[in-house]
């Protein structure tokens, strides 16, 4: 059968309009935006246009958008940069993160608080998406505090209470960062509505180019840079700007936000169909974060008594591209810290994450459900017989 790509939460293909938008900046319009001459001016204008487009899409001001080289860099700049700035001002910061954050946030938080540089607080999240507010308040009671809570979880799609936590942080005088990499284009993300101080987004989850990202940094929130050099990106991210990347990110972000409402409704209906087909065929299946509010593009299901790696490989050999927990950098599967946080470290389930995107059709999800059910049935029969 033709392979089906249902791994859009890992990454997405470049959108045709985005490719067209980038094209000139891979060709004749190659200048350095810092140059005074016409090549430089053209590049600087394109960069400014891209920045304005991103600002508009997120409800930010032009000068609050900083282009960086991806989501991981943006998370690190937000958390480590804010903690470093607080230390430079003579404070020992508290950094609070939830247990279901992306590795980029967990890594940045642990680096920002290593060797006595700060206090690290981990805030549990329940299966229904609710946060342990007592633990959060404990962190807020040891100021200055930097809180990072993702908007949408990348493994199960659950929506976290960003609005509520942002408001709580604002009231307590804490800095609030959100990794909105999986949220943009799927749920409403507006920094003029939700009082976040720092927000991370990336292009490649939105059919934009890989290696592109941005950090929204609200006017009046001060960071120390992680890299040192020239004055680009208001000193926060020195280095000659990737104009093509910024233009691509802006085009992808603008389209994703403009189409969000209709596309989210379409994906939500497909996801419901997928989960319905799976549940009808696979007894004992669990929908992860099934009781939490969820973004429409992710369906994470767990199956009892199976080996996760064999299941994913068997599905790939059948032409179905999905993932387990999150994609690991070697391709070897390892336990998911997110599922461990939600269901316990010795949860005996194998997990499959289906993530839907622009190319996904009703035919795809029906076929995906059939293939998955037949592979699961075969493997379960083997496990039972072995």
């Amino acid at each position, binding site marked *: 059968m033709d392979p089906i790509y249902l791994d859009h939460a890992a990454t997405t293909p470049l959108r045709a309009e985005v490719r067209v938008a980038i094209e000139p900046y891979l060709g004749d319009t190659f200048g350095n935006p810092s140059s005074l001459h016409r090549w430089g001016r053209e590049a600087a204008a394109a960069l400014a246009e891209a920045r304005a487009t991103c600002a508009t899409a997120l409800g930010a001001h032009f000068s609050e958008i900083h282009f960086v080289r991806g989501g991981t860099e943006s998370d690190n700049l937000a958390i480590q940069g804010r903690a470093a700035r607080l230390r430079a001002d003579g404070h020992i910061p508290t950094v609070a993160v939830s247990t279901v954050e992306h590795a980029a946030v967990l890594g940045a938080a642990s680096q920002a608080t290593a060797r006595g540089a700060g206090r690290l607080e981990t805030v549990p999240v329940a299966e229904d998406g609710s946060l342990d507010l007592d633990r959060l308040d404990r962190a807020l009671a040891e100021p200055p505090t930097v809180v990072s809570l993702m908007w949408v979880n990348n493994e199960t799609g659950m929506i976290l209470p960003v609005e509520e936590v942002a408001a709580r942080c604002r009231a307590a005088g804490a800095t609030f960062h959100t990794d909105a990499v999986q949220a943009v284009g799927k749920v409403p993300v507006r920094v003029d509505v939700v009082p976040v101080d720092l927000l991370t987004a990336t292009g490649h989850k939105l059919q934009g180019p890989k290696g592109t990202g941005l950090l929204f940094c609200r006017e009046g929130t001060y960071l120390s840079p992680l890299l040192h050099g020239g004055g680009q990106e208001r000193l926060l991210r020195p280095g000659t700007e990737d104009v093509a990347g910024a233009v691509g990110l802006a085009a992808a972000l603008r389209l994703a936000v403009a189409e969000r409402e209709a596309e989210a409704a379409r994906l939500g209906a497909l996801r419901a169909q997928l989960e319905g087909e799976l549940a009808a065929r696979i007894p004992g299946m669990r929908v992860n974060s099934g009781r939490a509010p969820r973004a429409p593009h992710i369906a994470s299901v767990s199956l009892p008594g199976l080996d996760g790696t064999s299941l994913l490989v068997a599905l790939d050999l059948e032409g179905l591209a999905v993932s387990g927990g999150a994609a690991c950098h*070697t391709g070897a599967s390892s336990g998911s810290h997110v599922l461990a946080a939600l269901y316990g470290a010795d949860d005996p389930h194998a997990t499959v994450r289906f993530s839907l995107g622009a190319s996904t059709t009703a035919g795809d999800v029906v076929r995906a459900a059939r293939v998955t059910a037949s592979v699961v049935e075969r493997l379960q029969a083997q496990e039972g017989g072995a």
Partner: protein
Amino acid sequence: MSRVLVAMSGGVDSSVAAALLKEAGHEVVGVTMKTFCYSGTPGHAKTCCGLDGIADARRVTMALDIPHYVFDVEEDFSRDVVDDFVSEYARGRTPNPCVRCNGNTKFRDLLARGRALECEAIASGHYVRWEEGPGGPRLRRGADRAKDQSYFLWELPRAILPRVRFPLGDLTKAQVRERARSLGLSTADKPESQEICFVPTGDYRDLLRRKLGPFHAAFQPGRLVDRRGNVLGEHDGFAGFTVGQRKGLGGGFGEPMFVLEIRPDTREVVVGTREELVAHHVEVGELNWLIEVPEAGTHLRVQLRYRAADVPALVLEAGDRVTLELLEDAAAVTPGQSAVFYDGERLLGGGRIVRAESAAA
């Protein structure tokens, strides 16, 4: 067309094995086992054992247009191979971790994966010949005697023989490299791996010290004694010794002296002359047979070290353990090492050496 799962280390042998199976019309699925992480050695060029191997295997599978996956066997490997390696040394024995890994970790995991993935067979790039025989499939030494790896495979469960394939069995290493070059494989001129994969520094004592702690008996000074009990000197820990070793004993003995035996209980290292090193009887345990268990009185050949020649032997007793009378001299027969049994070129099985005795003793 049948589906075959091929273990690919990222070396030239397994690359060519996969290529040959593909040429033969099989649907080939490549897998690399991730066995060991050097997480304790920051700055090591390879952050993870096999990560370079994984990348090499991936490039080869792209060139061959076959799928490739990584299976994490770190937990099993650490328990069955590394912990075993450490505890064997702590008992004064000298283990063969590569034998352990093949028989206990890699093929066991491969077999389970192969079943889950509807594979008819599992394959590897070992130099060993697989052939149908009257009583079922059998294994023979590789055609390239310099590369023959049957010694490492005696632990394979007999029941899986119908489902294993070794496409390189009839080839020489030179032919394999030639094939790799003509196929344009990026691994064609990759050097052989020599070290034990989880001992990147080449000094296994670092690993033992880390795992056992510096105060373990294996690192405490002890006496060097001869067979008659005379104390000849001191050593600084039996972890540094293996039977047959000459280095590190100090000089001044008048004639070359070799390690004959390690006695972990008393921390004594027994040394003696070259003549005393020759064994005449061997007791072998932890057996695995690829044939029916032979009776006492059976003649076979036994190989007692990876690079040693096999010698004729007579089975004196066979059961949970086998006692062999060696019909030719074999030196430095070392507890913990593999004793691998052959009938001519045919692999019959093997076990771990428990004890060796010279006629004099």
